Each structure stands twice: as structure tokens, then as C-alpha cells.
């Protein structure tokens, strides 16, 4: 039983790897579907903004409020902006953004491509002289690879703003002082790895969503399953990548 399950997981991992290899071999050859790429950027990036922004804002606010008591205990309340900015920028904002997107975009792509698959739209595209892999997969994967970092940057900013408001609930930190402290604390070693990893988050979300949708089979029921497993796998991958990213940046002494 367990053996079967492991075999299935490994087979799927191999399939995903092959799918990824196909992405790299096809995505960068002409013709590039630029209009479709922009369209996907719009849906994946712009349309996810409100959700990401609200979540990031709340996280910033909450983390700040939650961190205060401990710092007060040490008499280090003035360190609140420093502490909060580091945890938000390095970890919370990028990961929250990626998780939200794994939920929204991963399931969206999985369901959309899944239903396109079962209603033969993908075949129809191929008949219409379009390489569906380029038109559907490459554009979505690239769009999510490039849009999620932008969402994460905006999430950083919004969550820090939330942090500013949170810091002002009990104490009083002026606007200038807050940002001064934030940028005094933040180093390139905080920002660059945290942005770089979001590219990998975006790529993983895109590729898993596409893989699941593109290989959706068993009719309309399969569509739901594709969407669901796209979310599950890509959320899990986000954490795995995060772990790797943290270890690598730790090894490279970027911390």
C-alpha cells in the first residue's frame, strides 16, 4: 500500500519534472505569445492585487500588535519597527503572497486549463495552428513567475504600512521615524533573497497549476480535482522552496 503510494508520488514528481523540462524547451522559442502573456499578467497580477494587499495589510498589523508585548517586557519597545520590518520583509509578506496566489492562481489555472482540456478547447487551439503549450502554458507560467514578485513587493510595502498603524495603536511612532528605522534595519541581504525566492514561488505555482490542468482527464469531475491538487501541491512547494531559499541564503551568509 505504502509502496504503491510512494510509487505514485515519485511518478508524479517525474511527470512534473518532464513537464517543466518541456516548458523550458518550448517557452523560449518563437513564436512568443506576447498579447496572451500580457492578458495573463493582468489576470494573475493585477486581479490578485486586492486580495494580496488586504492579507498583507492585516498580517502587518497583526504581527506588530502581537510582537509588542514581548518587546515591552524587555523594555525594547522602540525596536518594534525594526523587528517587525525584518520578519515581514524576509518571510511573512513573500510567503503569504505566495500562498494566497497558490490558492487563487493555482486553482484558477488548474480549473481553467482542466475545463479547456475536457471540452477539447486545447485540441481546438492546436488545430487552429497554435501551439497550446506556448499559448496556454508558457504564458501562464511566465506571467505568474513575473507577477508574483511584484505582488510580493507591494505586499511588503502594504504590510509595513499595516505595521506602522499597528505600532501606533499603543505607542507613538512618527511616520518618518518608522520608515527611518525600517530602512536602517533592512539590508540588501534581507530584501534581495526575499524577492528572488518569490520568482521561484511564482514559477512553482504557475507550473503546478498548468501541469494539473493540462493533464486533467476524467471529465468535469477531473477539473475539480485538478484545481484542488494544484492548490495543495503548489502550497506545499512554496514552503519547500522557502526552506531551501532560507538555507541557501544562510549558507551564502546573506542573512
Amino acid at each position, binding site marked *: 500500500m505504502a509502496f504503491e503510494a510512494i510509487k505514485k508520488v515519485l511518478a508524479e514528481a517525474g511527470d512534473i519534472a518532464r513537464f517543466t523540462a518541456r516548458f523550458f524547451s518550448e517557452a523560449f522559442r518563437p513564436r512568443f505569445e506576447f498579447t496572451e502573456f*500580457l*492578458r495573463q*499578467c*493582468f489576470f494573475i*497580477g*493585477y486581479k490578485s*492585487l486586492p486580495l494580496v494587499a488586504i492579507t498583507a495589510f492585516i498580517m502587518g498589523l497583526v504581527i506588530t500588535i502581537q510582537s509588542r508585548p514581548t518587546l515591552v517586557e*524587555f*523594555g*525594547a519597545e*522602540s*525596536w518594534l519597527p525594526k523587528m517587525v520590518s525584518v520578519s515581514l520583509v524576509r518571510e511573512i509578506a513573500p510567503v503569504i503572497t505566495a500562498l494566497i496566489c497558490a490558492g487563487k492562481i493555482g486553482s484558477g489555472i488548474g480549473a481553467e486549463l482542466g475545463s479547456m482540456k475536457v471540452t477539447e478547447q486545447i485540441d481546438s487551439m492546436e488545430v487552429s495552428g497554435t501551439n497550446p503549450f506556448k499559448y496556454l502554458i508558457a504564458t501562464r507560467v511566465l506571467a505568474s513567475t513575473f507577477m508574483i*514578485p*511584484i*505582488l510580493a*513587493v*507591494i505586499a*511588503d*510595502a502594504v504590510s509595513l504600512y499595516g505595521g506602522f498603524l499597528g505600532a501606533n495603536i499603543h505607542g507613538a511612532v512618527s511616520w518618518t521615524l518608522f*520608515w527611518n528605522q525600517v*530602512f*536602517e534595519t*533592512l*539590508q*540588501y541581504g534581507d*530584501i534581495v533573497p526575499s*524577492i528572488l525566492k518569490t520568482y521561484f514561488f511564482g514559477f512553482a505555482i504557475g507550473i503546478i497549476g498548468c501541469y494539473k490542468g493540462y493533464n486533467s482527464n476524467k471529465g468535469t469531475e477531473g477539473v475539480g480535482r485538478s484545481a484542488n491538487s494544484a492548490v495543495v501541491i503548489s502550497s506545499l512547494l512554496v514552503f519547500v522552496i522557502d526552506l531551501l531559499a532560507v538555507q541557501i541564503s544562510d549558507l551564502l551568509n546573506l542573512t
Partner: protein
Amino acid sequence: MNNMANETFRNIRLGVFVVVGTLLLVTAFYLVGNKQNLFGSSFRISARFYNVNGLTQGNNVRFAGIDVGTVETVNIENDSTVIVVMLLEKDVQKFIKGNAIASVGTDGLMGNKLVNINSVKDLGLSIKEGDELRTLRPLEMDEMVRTLNETNINIKVITDNLRSITEKISSKNSLWNVLLDTIVADNVKSAVVNLKLMSNDGIAITGNLKELARQMRYGKGTIAALITDTVLSGRINQTIVKLEKFSDTAAVISGDISYLVQQLKHGKGSMGVLLTDTMLVHDLNKSILRIDTAAGSFNENMEALQYSWPFKKYYKKKGKK
């Protein structure tokens, strides 16, 4: 054709989204860089230190308490010199005079290391690109505590030495042994040297402690609240007083002993005189007593200090080793 317009509108919104995101990132990079002096005009100066206490690349440089730049490199020049190159904002160049003094300090008690540049009263020429600043040895808590401890151990050794000498002198049987035993004389001599050294150390430590106490009183550093702990500061002051007293005592004792040794060595007076000179033995005993009490009270203080907050960490670490 309304879907064309729609498409354009969509692209515009996408454009705004991307531009906003990118601008935020660029701004963040600029602001971070600004704090690290990577952009904007700057100039370089250096300083040679004996010990930089963990100062590293990227630490702040403060002039009159204001962050004016960062440490660019820290390199060992030779066994007793570390050269620190600092990158400072161009704007402050005219305020820093050539005779300013650089020292390595700490931002608060637990904060980052930093370089302080302090100006000296009398006017001089402004500093130029590539100039080297004079330096002060940094005040280092660890080192200080270490020295205090050593002093303590030294006192014990000396006391023990002296005690064994007196014992030997007191017991009549071994009188001759004492006189013939050059090792004893050497022991006494080294005890004196140690004592002198120690009293010098004591003075240095006292200076350091005074500075520390002063800093504490003025609440320098971020965690001011912790430091203004008046009990602690009081204790440190007490230690200073004791130490000062102890140094004086040490000086007196060392004076006594060297006199004694001289007498022994050069055989001043007849041997008989020496032997019957109960006064001398008495003196020696008194000296030992004095050292004992001094060391005792010093120990008490050290113990008290151990349980005070800033030193706790140090002792804990030491305990683990």
C-alpha cells in the same frame, strides 16, 4: 471595437501595477543603499586600532552621535594593528577635523559595534579623503571583567606566597632554610612585581569602570531603561572606590615588601639582627592581612557584580566553558 479599448485599458492598469511594484522596489533599494552609503557622494578615511572588538563591514560610523557612514573594510595589518576603512557622507567632511579621535564602541549595551568619531576641542583643518584618524582603545566589557578576574586570582597567589614566606620565617627550625633559600627571595620578588602590575591594572580598570558608570548614568544606548538601574550603577561605583583603595594598598604593600627583599638580599645588618627582628615578621604579617582584607572586599564586589544584569551573560558564558 469596444474590446480593443478594453484590452488597452487592461494593459494600462497592468502597466501601472508593474510600474508601482518596480518603483517600490527601486525606492527600497535606494533607501537601504542610502543607509549603507552606496549611492550619493562620499569619501573615505581610515583608522588603525589595536583591537576592533568584532567591528565588521557595514557597521555604522557616528560623528557627534549622528550616523554619517559605514565601515567599508576591516583588515589586519600586523599582529597589533587592524586598519578600518570608513566610507562617510561628503556633507560631514567639513565638520570632521584632522585631530578627531576614532574609537570602537557599542550601540547600547547589546547593540551593534560602531565607530565613534569624536572631535577634540581645539580647531584644526578639516579631514581629507584618505586621511587617518587617531584612535582610542575601546572600552570593552568582556576584557574588563576578564582583567578584574585575573587581578583577583593574582591577589590570591601573592597572598599565598607571602603567607608561606611568613610561615617559614616564623618557624624557628627552618630559619636557616629561609635565608639560604634563594627561591623564596625570588618568590618574594615576583610577588612584588605582580603586585605592582596589578595595581596598574587596577588603575586602568577603575578608569574603564568610571567611564562605564558615566555612560550608564547618561543613558547612552538604546536600552537606556535597563542601564539606568541605579542599584547596578551604585554597585559599580562602590567597586571603583574599593578598587582605588586596593590599588593604593597594593602600592604600599609592594613598597614594604621591596624594602624587605632589599634587606634580605643585600644582607643589610647582621643576620642576627634580621633573625631577631620580630618587627619585620610582624610587618609582613600585617601586610598579608591588609592584602587579605582588600582582596576579600574586592571579591565580595566581584560577586555582587556577577549577579548584576550586564555581567550575568559574561559569567554564564564563562561557566559553560
